[in-house]
């Protein structure tokens, strides 16, 4: 609907029955951002994958704190309900952008939104509480419940990535929680933490928000990147290139991610002398990520690549992620950012990075672990149709979107036809909208494949992909307690494919040394 409005301003939207007004447009943009980042990406990638995979991969019966875990799920459910409720309260849901900058968000009269925005803050706060509980679980479980022989440097990379994401989340969310409390007080008790007329400072919120906001990007990104690493190694039939170095690279990226937050604020009234230090740290963050990308490519080099649907999604995700990565350099460079800040270039950039990881990486993970979850295989043919459709339509949507940004089109405008220099871009907007509808429709085969395969899919064996990590040593789906008998002990690193001098092509982590050859 957002796209429709951009392509055909002020016209009736099919299935919705009327054109949307600018205030509704703002609300849709806000809710889209919030829902996607906090209520799709994080639960799906961090929580769902973490809860399912961590115990299976480290050889544990359950998470370290099962009750805390249940609580986190319920709090998340309540948070989602609160957010949904905000659509139905008087004066509509939050409309201050997903970043919720005050003063726009701090006083009712500026947006006209009443309780919708309070509910929005409340939903975020609950969601943070939920992930605090989850994050503690994701950290303590792999540290304390690893099976015998599973040393830290034998953990599958995705477990490392989820741990990294949890650390980043736990250490970055605090200031924003404090900020959210202040914002609620501003809205409801008339305080002025973020209002200049009362002695406060609007920029304070931006700092508190982005101090969390940038690490948050990696919270979403790392688990999906971890899934891609697992899959690329498995289907290249090849050990991962530079296992330890990848872990170190992620640590460096994690540390740097705490030092880059102000790159979202280059032109926000930030002290301009701060811009260059932040610009340098921002661009330097490309080095560890380049390292990870090169390591993935090196992993594929000389492999014996088995092109299954999860592999296609992982490779496609890597390809798009490179694209999103290189466009990040433009944004990171402070002078270029003067021009492209708050344009569609930024929108296209973060969709490229996040779409590639959240959706392509997420789909790769789903196709890969589906047999383990449901005991049946997904259909390969429809999986590949889904991949190619998604990949091509994605490029058709987001590559031209960069050009819109170069053309100077601002984000979050409800009606591009009101500006002369943006009006020229209208045909491009129409094209993107058509492609976006295509992107949506091409998800249909996935939905049918996902639901249908539960009943008619081929029965999956314990280890349909000949993979080496521990989760493939238990029946699919795993019974209660994860292993029917004793938990296997671990004797080797996670990605032992085509080891020289060994006749088997792959060696599961649980294979004892003596039985190897």
């Amino acid at each position, binding site marked *: 609907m957002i796209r429709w409005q951009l392509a055909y301003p002020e016209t009736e939207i099919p299935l919705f029955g009327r054109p949307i007004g600018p205030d509704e447009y703002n609300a849709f943009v806000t809710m889209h951002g919030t829902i996607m980042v906090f209520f799709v990406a994080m639960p799906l990638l961090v929580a769902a994958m973490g809860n399912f995979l961590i115990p299976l991969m480290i050889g544990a019966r359950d998470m370290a704190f099962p009750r805390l875990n249940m609580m986190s799920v319920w709090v998340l459910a309540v948070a989602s309900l609160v957010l949904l409720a905000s659509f139905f309260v008087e004066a509509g849901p939050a409309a201050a952008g997903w970043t919720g900058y005050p003063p726009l968000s701090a006083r009712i009269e500026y947006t006209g939104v009443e309780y919708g925005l309070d509910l929005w803050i409340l939903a975020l706060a609950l969601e943070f509480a939920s992930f605090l509980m989850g994050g503690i679980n994701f950290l303590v479980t792999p540290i304390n419940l690893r099976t015998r022989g599973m040393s830290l440097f034998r953990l599958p990379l995705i477990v490392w990535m989820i741990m990294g994401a949890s650390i980043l989340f736990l250490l970055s969310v*605090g200031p924003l929680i404090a900020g959210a409390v202040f914002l609620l007080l501003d809205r409801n008790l008339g305080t002025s933490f973020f209002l200049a007329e009362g002695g406060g*400072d609007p920029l304070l919120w931006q700092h508190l928000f982005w101090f969390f906001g940038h690490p948050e990007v990696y919270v979403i990104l790392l688990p999906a990147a971890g899934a891609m690493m697992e899959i690329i190694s498995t289907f290249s039939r090849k050990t991962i290139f530079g296992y330890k170095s990848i872990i170190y690279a992620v640590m460096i990226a994690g540390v740097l991610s*705490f030092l880059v937050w102000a790159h979202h604020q280059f032109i926000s009234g930030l*002290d301009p002398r701060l811009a260059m230090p932040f610009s340098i740290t921002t661009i330097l963050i490309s080095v560890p990520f380049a390292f990870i990308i090169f390591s993935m490519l090196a992993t594929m080099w000389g492999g014996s690549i088995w092109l299954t649907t999860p592999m296609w999604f992982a490779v496609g995700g890597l390809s798009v992620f490179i694209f999103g990565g290189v466009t990040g350099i433009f944004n990171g460079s402070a002078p270029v950012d003067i021009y492209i800040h708050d344009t569609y270039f930024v929108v296209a950039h973060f969709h490229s990075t996040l779409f590639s990881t959240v959706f392509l990486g997420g789909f790769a993970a789903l196709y890969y672990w589906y047999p383990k979850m449901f005991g049946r295989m997904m259909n390969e043919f429809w999986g590949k149709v889904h991949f190619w459709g998604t990949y091509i339509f994605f490029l058709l949507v987001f590559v031209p979107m960069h050009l819109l940004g170069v053309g100077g089109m601002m984000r979050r405008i409800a009606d591009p036809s009101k500006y002369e220099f943006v009006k020229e871009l209208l045909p491009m907007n129409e094209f993107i909208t058509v492609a976006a509808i295509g992107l949506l429709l091409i998800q249909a085969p996935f939905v049918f494949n996902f639901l249908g395969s539960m009943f008619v899919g081929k029965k999956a064996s314990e280890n349909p992909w000949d993979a080496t990590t521990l989760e493939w040593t238990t029946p699919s789906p795993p019974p209660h307690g994860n292993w029917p008998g004793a938990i296997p002990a671990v004797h080797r690193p996670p990605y032992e494919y085509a080891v020289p001098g060994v006749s088997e092509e792959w060696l599961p982590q649980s294979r004892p040394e003596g039985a190897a050859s």
Partner: protein
Amino acid sequence: MAAGEAHGPSNVIIWVYLVVLAILSVFVSSVFPAPADTIAVFALAIAKAVLVLLYFMHLRVEKIFIHSLFFIPLLLVVVLYVGLMPDIMRSMY
């Protein structure tokens, strides 16, 4: 902790220290001149916090890993402070 208890000063002694420091800080803030009192009061507050952390929260006998769980966030708070300072202090605008 059992080992720490045997060797270190007892909890009562730490409690007496804390009480003395608290009273001292109130006294200092009312007697010392303007800039000195703030510095002294915060030095005393840090001393109190360190006592609680070391003895009551057993950091004295904990592993480096637990230490890092406390001091890395503190370091980040300092980073946040330094990053915000030029802006909120409006040194430029």
